[in-house]
């Protein structure tokens, strides 16, 4: 495993340097079948961690663990320095105000309009109606979907639903965003649009994020491109550069097989990894 300094339980002591996400020896099993085994990694402030791996490798479970939607059988998970494995559900609700999550199948509330879906968290917090509407429009503009504000999820395409889901996740300006396969099941063009939005959020807001994907193309697009606010489009980083804040974690059968930077991933001699990347 590359970049051992990012793994394990040796955490920086200064709060300002403290990682946003820490998995410390986390394991979980379903019906005695291990899904994640001794998972340890950290994500620093402003970093984007791309989680790769074959289907059924425990990626989505890891994302749900990071948001406290599941509890591990053993190990610790620290989010913003707080051990969420010891928190009650009520304490977790408060913490989740700082976390945005984009679900694999969007998970939009089908009985609510796009506006009410995006505004859900603000409505729960009793934010004044005028401010809520303004922020919803702003979030929908970010995902370039303001024309769909009055529509219902059933009237949207898969890609549009995913964009609404991103708008819902970013409306409260979270400090951490969890993207669970945001491009899963989408065609390549729509996938690129979604990845561009993830990149825009990374480069404009510098939000710490975890991104699950099974499409290597999406992962490397994120690592090798940047969002240009002048042209409002993504562009290749000059001189074959890579985004230094984007890191990779590769999972296979519930274990970490790689944790490191883009360069380390590309230069890895691990036979399984080379076959997976080829």
């Amino acid at each position, binding site marked *: 495993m590359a970049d051992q300094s990012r793994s394990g339980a040796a955490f920086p002591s200064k709060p300002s340097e403290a990682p946003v996400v820490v998995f410390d020896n986390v394991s979980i099993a379903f019906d005695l079948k291990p899904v994640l085994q001794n998972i340890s990694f950290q994500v620093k402030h402003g970093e984007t961690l791309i989680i790769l791996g074959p289907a059924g490798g425990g990626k989505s479970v890891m994302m749900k663990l990071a948001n406290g939607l599941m509890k591990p059988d053993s190990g610790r998970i620290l989010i913003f320095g707080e051990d969420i494995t010891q928190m009650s559900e009520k304490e977790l*609700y408060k913490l989740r105000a700082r976390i945005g*999550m984009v*679900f694999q199948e969007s*998970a939009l509330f089908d009985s609510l309009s796009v506006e009410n879906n995006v505004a859900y968290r603000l409505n729960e917090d009793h934010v004044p109606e005028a401010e809520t509407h303004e922020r919803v429009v702003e979030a929908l503009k970010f995902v370039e979907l303001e024309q769909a504000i009055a529509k219902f999820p059933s009237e949207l395409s898969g890609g549009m639903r995913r964009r609404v889901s991103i708008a819902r996740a970013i409306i409260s300006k979270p400090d951490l965003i969890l993207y669970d396969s945001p491009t899963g099941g989408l065609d390549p063009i729509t996938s690129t649009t979604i990845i561009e939005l993830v990149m825009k959020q990374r480069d404009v807001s510098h939000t710490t994020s975890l991104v699950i994907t099974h499409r290597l193309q999406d992962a490397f697009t994120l690592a090798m491109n940047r969002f240009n606010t002048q042209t409002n489009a993504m562009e290749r980083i000059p001189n074959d550069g890579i985004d230094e804040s984007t890191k990779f974690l590769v999972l296979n059968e519930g274990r970490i097989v790689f944790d490191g930077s883009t360069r380390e991933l590309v230069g890895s001699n691990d036979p399984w990894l080379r076959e997976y990347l080829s």
Partner: protein
Amino acid sequence: MPFVSPEDFAKEKIGAVQDYSILAWRAIANFFSSPRYMADVYTQMDLIGVGSLPTIALTGFFTGSVLALQSATSLKAFGATTMTGSLVALSMVKELGPVLTGLMLAGRNASGMASELGSMKVTEQIDAMRALGTDPVRKLVTPRLYATVVMLFFLTIVADAVGIAGGALVSVTMLGMNTSTYFHSSYRSLEYADIVQGLTKPLFSAFIIATVGCYFGMNTKGGTQGVGRATTQAVVVSSIFIIIVDFLVSRAMIGVFGR
């Protein structure tokens, strides 16, 4: 189908009872702390109460009618057809009104709750709700529980009244009875204990319908097939529980009031 050891089977069932008890307790307790989703309570009251009114009214009317028709035949043998009103009123208020209304509501609403929450579960909407900082039990289960309790109580009164009216229509138009005799007999036969018994039962039935429906919905697994399974289980289990609890409440009430 894989063989399940008796130990695993027992553990699974005990675990389910434990989960159900926790869900039911949280659904009750949530109403006594904020946030309270009153708008959702009123929406559910409309869906459960107003939406079920035609079904309950029809069921009550024809149950009362057929009860008058059948009992008059038996009572005629004893020369006691004037007691038809009494028999219909007592049967409707103490037993048939509460039980049939409960069973009809179980068929209509326990299934509806299980399928709605089940669909939300399998499409990760419940997880999304938690991720957005909302307690799904507080937002989805508590409003359904309180709305069902309030509305089933009033629906039972409607079913009782319409049932007695149905019995009156049959007695007067088909059996040639006097309207005044029928209603006088009905009124005189009913006592305070009968009304209390008849209006206590819907409180228990409503609790069963809402908690069982929501429990199966919230624990749905296995996609659309799982939603169908949860819906069926919710109707079957809530119907059986309603009949069992009806017997227990009847016995307890007879013990307390002596009738």
